[in-house]
C-alpha cells in the first residue's frame, strides 16, 4: 500500500464518519467523547491545516508571495453563510426533498459555494496580479485582501462591521479533518503530477521555464485559484464552526498568521506545513496567557529563522509523499 492509497483510505473513513455524525459536534469519533476545549482546538487546527496547505501551493510550490489569504477565507465564510444564515429559509425550502437531511445538504452546498466563490475571487485577483513579482505581488494581494474586507464591512446585507451572527454550527471534527486531508491529498497530487512540475519550474526559474515553453501565467493563475478554493472551504468551515464572523477577523493579521505557518513549516513542503499548522494552533492556545508576548516572539522567530534557516524549521521533511522533498 502506497502512502497515497493510505491517505485516500483515511479520507474515505473520515468522510464516512463525519457524514454519520454531522450535527453532533460533540460526538467526535475516533476519540469518543472528549472535552469541548480540546475538540475546539482540534477543529481549529484542521482549519489552519487547510489554510496553510492551500497557501503553500501559491507561496511554496509556485514561489509567488501572497499576503491576501484571509481575503479568500472571508469570501468563503461569507459566501457560505449567505446560504445557511441569511437565506436559510429559502434554501432549506428548496432542499425539502432531502427530508431530514436538508440542513446537512445545505451545509455541504454552502461549503462548495464558499469554495467556488473564493476560487472566482482568486481568479479575479490572480489575473491582474500576474504582471508582478515578489514584493509587488505581496503588496497587491495584501491590497486585494483589504479591499475584500472593506467591501464586506460596507455591505449592510452581510452585517457590515457588526459581523454576522447565528450561523448554524455544523462543522464537526470529521468534516474539518476530512476536508483538510482532502486538501493535502489534492495539493500533493497536483504538485507531484506531470502537470504540477510546471509550478516548481515557475518557482525555480521563471525565465527558464518560460523559455522551455511552460505557460507561466496559466500556472500562476491555477495556483491562485486552487489555493483560493481551499481557503474558501476553510473559511466556510470556520464560519460554521464559530457561528459568528466579523470582517475584522479576516484582516491582514490573519493572512500573516497563515504565512508564518507556511514559513515555519518550510515553503514547498506539504508535510512540514501541516505539522507547523497543527503545532502553531496548539502553541497559540498554550501561550494564551502570554498573549502579549506571543506575537513578539513569533516576529523575532521569523527574523532569526530567515537569517539562519530560510528553508523553515521543518523544511525538507516532506519526503513521505512520493517524489516530493522540501524546497531543494
Amino acid at each position, binding site marked *: 500500500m502506497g502512502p497515497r492509497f493510505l491517505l485516500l483510505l483515511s479520507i474515505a473513513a473520515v468522510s464516512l464518519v463525519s457524514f454519520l455524525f454531522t450535527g453532533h459536534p460533540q460526538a467526535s469519533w475516533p476519540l469518543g467523547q472528549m472535552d469541548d476545549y480540546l475538540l475546539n482546538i482540534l477543529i481549529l487546527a484542521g482549519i489552519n491545516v487547510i489554510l496553510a496547505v492551500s497557501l503553500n501551493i501559491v507561496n511554496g510550490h509556485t*514561489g509567488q508571495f501572497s499576503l491576501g489569504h484571509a481575503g479568500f477565507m472571508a469570501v468563503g465564510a461569507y459566501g457560505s453563510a449567505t446560504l445557511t444564515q441569511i437565506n436559510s429559509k429559502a434554501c432549506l425550502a428548496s432542499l425539502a426533498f432531502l427530508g431530514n437531511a436538508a440542513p446537512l445538504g445545505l451545509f455541504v452546498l454552502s461549503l462548495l459555494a464558499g469554495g467556488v466563490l473564493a476560487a472566482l475571487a482568486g481568479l479575479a485577483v490572480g489575473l491582474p496580479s500576474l504582471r508582478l513579482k515578489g514584493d509587488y505581488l505581496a503588496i*497587491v494581494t*495584501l*491590497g486585494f485582501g483589504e479591499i475584500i474586507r472593506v467591501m464586506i464591512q460596507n455591505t449592510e446585507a452581510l452585517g457590515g462591521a457588526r459581523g454576522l451572527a447565528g450561523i448554524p454550527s455544523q462543522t464537526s471534527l470529521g468534516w474539518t479533518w476530512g476536508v483538510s486531508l482532502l486538501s493535502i491529498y489534492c495539493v500533493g497530487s497536483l504538485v507531484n503530477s506531470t502537470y504540477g512540475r510546471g509550478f516548481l519550474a515557475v518557482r525555480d526559474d521563471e525565465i527558464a521555464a518560460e523559455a522551455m515553453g511552460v505557460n507561466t501565467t496559466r500556472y500562476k493563475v491555477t495556483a491562485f485559484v486552487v489555493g483560493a478554493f481551499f481557503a474558501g472551504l476553510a473559511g466556510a468551515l470556520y464560519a460554521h464552526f464559530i457561528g459568528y464572523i466579523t470582517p475584522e477577523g479576516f484582516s491582514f493579521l490573519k493572512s*500573516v498568521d497563515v504565512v508564518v505557518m507556511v514559513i515555519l513549516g518550510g515553503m514547498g513542503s506539504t508535510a512540514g506545513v501541516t505539522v507547523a499548522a497543527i503545532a502553531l494552533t496548539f502553541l497559540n492556545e498554550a501561550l494564551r496567557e502570554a498573549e502579549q508576548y506571543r506575537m513578539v516572539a513569533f516576529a523575532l522567530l521569523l527574523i532569526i529563522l530567515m537569517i539562519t534557516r530560510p528553508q523553515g524549521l521543518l523544511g525538507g521533511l516532506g519526503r513521505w509523499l512520493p517524489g516530493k522533498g522540501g524546497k531543494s
Partner: protein
Amino acid sequence: MNEFLQQLINGLSLGAVYALIALGYTMVYGVLRFINFAHGDVFMVGAFSGMYFGRWLKPFAAAWPEWLFASVVLLGSMLFCAVLGIVIERLAYKPLRERPRLTVLITAIGVSLLLEYAGQLVFGAAPRGFPSLITSTSISGLGGLQASNIQLIVLVVTSLLLLGLHLIVMRSRLGLAMRALSLNPTAARLMGVNTNVVISFTFGLGSALAAAGAVFYASLYQAIDPFMGVLPGMKAFVAAVLGGVGSLPGAMVGGLILGVVETLVVGYSKLLGIPPGYRDAVAFVILILILLFKPSGLFGKTQREKV
C-alpha cells in the same frame, strides 16, 4: 468651488505626510531593490517618540517660544528614528544582502510585526493622545476658506524638508554615492563607494523623514496607537508606486495625488456614489490600476528582467 478648494487643502496636508513616508520606501528601493515593509512601523515609532520626547521636554521648555519647542521635538523624533532605521538595517537586513528577495521580504514582515507588537507591549494597545505642539487656530482665507494653522505649517515644513532632501541627494558627496549605488551597485563599489555607509545613511534619511511625517500626522489627527503605521505605510507605498518606485520626485507627487484623491473621494462620496467607508480601499484600487496600465509609475523607468 469653495468646498473643492477646502477639500484640496485637507488633501494636500494628508498627502504631504504620505509623500514623506513614500520617500523612505523609494530611497531604500533605490539602493537595495527591496520594499522595506517595516517602514510604516518606523513611522509609528516616530509618533510615539515625538509624544514621549515632547512630554519630557515640556517642563524645560516652558519659557521657549512655541515654534522652537515644536521644532526641537520634531528634530528629536527624526534623530531617534534615523538611529532606529540604521539599527534595523544592520541587524536584520544586512546579513541577508546576497539572499533571495523573498527572504528579505519575509524578514521585513517580521521586523514590522516585531515593532507593532513590541510597541503594543511598551506603549499599550489603547490609542493615546498626542500633545499639541502648536496651539491650533483656524485661519480664514479668501472666500471663507478655512484651514488650521497646523495644516499650513505641515505644508510649509514638508516643502522645506523636501528641499533639504533634494540638496542632500543632488549636492552632497553621500547623495552622489546614493545615486551611484542605485544606478549600478557593482560599479559603485568598484569606484570606491563604501556601500555599507551609504545604505545606512539611506535608511537613516528615510526613517527620519517618516518620523517627521509621523509628528505631522499625529498633530493633525491627535490620536496615536501601535498599529497606526500599517495603513499610512501601505498607502505611502502605493504613493511610491504611483510616482514610480525609485524616483524621488515621483514619491512626492504620488503622495500628494494620493492624499488629494482620497480626501476628495470621501468628501464627495454622495456625488460619486461611493460610501465614505471605502476610504481605505481607494489607495489599493489606485495601486491595482497603475500596476495594470502603467506599472513603471508616473516618473519611473521600465525595467526588463534579464537573465
